[in-house]
């Protein structure tokens, strides 16, 4: 059997004294797109933060294997260099740091960590221009400070631009549809779909089924009270939409 791109085994995590993840088991094979659906407060976003290595959360049990390698001992930048990418639900505004400076630092830090040579400025400029075109990102937006004064839609498009430039092998998209109108949702989804690849996997975390009309998943996982309670095909998302999450709560209890 080939190594899954992401394997989460019995993952428990807490913030301060509160346990939020209570034994998550999840496998995403290479090239597949999996959706994680759950109601607010079920621990979906915590899962994305724990995968990316946010300090506030303490992992108390379990393993996370990225392409067969345990990443829980790595800091967020090391995980990113190994090919993990988290598209934030709320991208952080960073005043004083120009978007282009940030993009270049991110690309070259990852290349350096992997022992590759730095990208030249002309190559970098070309890559940004090419990736930005499809996402309707103009150069004015890139001249501003990172995410500062970006609209909700601009922030999400900027996340996908970063994803396109960094070429991760495992993408975690946390509520990428939140705050998007239908047109923006389409642009973002097209951007994500363009990055689907037999060597790239995605974990799409969402509250609503509508995103999954645009980014069609191979597998849907239902998340409740800090763990996966049911997995199935894309029709599971429709079932959830029809019945609500209440029907799945019993499985979690």
């Amino acid at each position: 059997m080939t190594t899954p791109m992401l394997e989460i085994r019995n993952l428990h995590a807490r913030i301060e004294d509160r346990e939020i993840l209570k034994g998550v088991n999840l496998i995403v094979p290479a090239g597949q797109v999996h959706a994680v659906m759950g109601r607010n407060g079920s621990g979906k976003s915590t899962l994305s933060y724990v995968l990316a290595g946010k300090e506030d959360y303490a992992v108390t049990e379990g393993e996370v294997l990225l392409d067969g390698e345990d990443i829980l001992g790595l800091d967020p930048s090391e995980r990113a260099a190994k090919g993990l990418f988290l598209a934030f639900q709320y991208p952080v505004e960073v005043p004083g740091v120009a978007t282009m400076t940030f993009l270049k630092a991110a690309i070259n830090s990852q290349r350096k960590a992997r022992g590759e040579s730095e990208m030249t400025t002309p190559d970098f400029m070309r890559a940004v221009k090419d990736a930005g075109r499809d996402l309707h990102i103009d150069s004015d937006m890139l001249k501003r400070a990172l995410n500062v004064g970006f609209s909700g839609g601009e922030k999400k498009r900027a996340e996908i631009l970063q994803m396109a430039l960094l070429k991760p092998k495992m993408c975690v998209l946390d509520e990428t549809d939140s705050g998007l109108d239908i047109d923006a949702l389409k642009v973002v989804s097209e951007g994500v779909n363009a990055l689907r690849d037999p060597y790239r996997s995605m974990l799409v975390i969402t509250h609503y089924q509508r995103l999954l009309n645009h980014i069609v998943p191979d597998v849907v996982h239902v998340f409740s009270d800090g763990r996966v309670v049911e997995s199935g095909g894309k029709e599971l998302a429709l079932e959830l939409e029809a019945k609500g999450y209440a029907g799945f709560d019993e499985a979690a209890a």
Partner: protein
Amino acid sequence: MSVHVPVRIGPAEQALIGQLQSAGASAAAERLQAAGLPTRKVESYHYTDLKMLLRAVPDLAVSTEATSEPAFRVPGAHRIPMTNGGADISGQMPAGMVATIAKGSALTERDDVLVRLNSALAKETLKLEIRSRATQIVHVDRRTEGGPSHVNDSVHLFVADGSKATIIETFSGTDEAHVSNHASYVAVGEGAELTHILLDLSGGNATNFATAEYHIGAGAKLRTIAIHIGAGLSRFNLFTRHEGEGAHGDFTGLNLTTEGQHSDITLEVTHAVPRCSSKPLFKQIARGRSTAAFQGKIVVARDAQKTDAKLMMQGLMLSDEAQIYSKPELEIFADDVVCGHGSTTGALDEDSMFYLMSRGIPQTIAESMLVRGFIEEIIDPVEDEALHLALEGVVERWLNP
């Protein structure tokens, strides 16, 4: 009946009193004898107890040649060396600028020990008068050279009506236990535009005091940037006064402190006439065991209606042992004004750190990107590219020594 408690006079005060007496400034000497150097009980020195911090004062400086390398160079700028209080104006001045030397200090009398010392001890003032909108930057390179010296030097800058200038004054010299007490008197004429930068690059063993007073004419635009980097003990006194309607002041500063340093920036903005605006913005970053302090006061006179003033202070703590003090104050006597102040101090934002690191940027690089971003807001408005780069360079050296 008042009770006189005799003030204990320490060696620093003893030396200063002797120097004042020799200079014939008996009133200033008596005052110091009676009150001593200011302690934390004096409000304007609350965070910088000079009696405790200033342990010794060396002999008054003798004139000498500059031996240290310029600590700061701006390509294309016109540099005027000023060594141990003496300015060298022998070179060809830029078109539209006249340089002369006058006797005594340029400062206006004020109840402040540093002002009194400079007024009594500064022998001469370098006067620069600018009548032009020429863009050549003027760099007054003020240095304290040789063995430990006590220097009192003075500069008078006048930017005539409708003129435009960028003037930077740097403080540096040999890394000795100097006490340098600098003065700048800055007058900005009607409709004139001035960017005035004070940059301390003294050695860590040195004490650097700098007092600048600003007089801003009608419709004038003034940007000031006070930057502390070098001196072990530093105090900036900034006194500004809007004197003509429609004047605007962007008073800004960067107080950067590292292991063993104590640096204080104290600002007093006075709105004396109606319809003026000011936007003081000061940032402090402290690391190691160091202390950075900022006091900012905006005074709006009874006649200064329609004043628009917003004072902002931001602090960034890079170590657990660092201390940052911040005291914004408003004193408003007019009833139709928009005034505000704010102050925030903390460590680097954890969410920003996580965001940068989640993109593969290692911790140390992410930290310096955020610190640089924090500083950038102060340096960014400097239009001249060479000067901007030079300022970024000195800050970069502070970040990565």
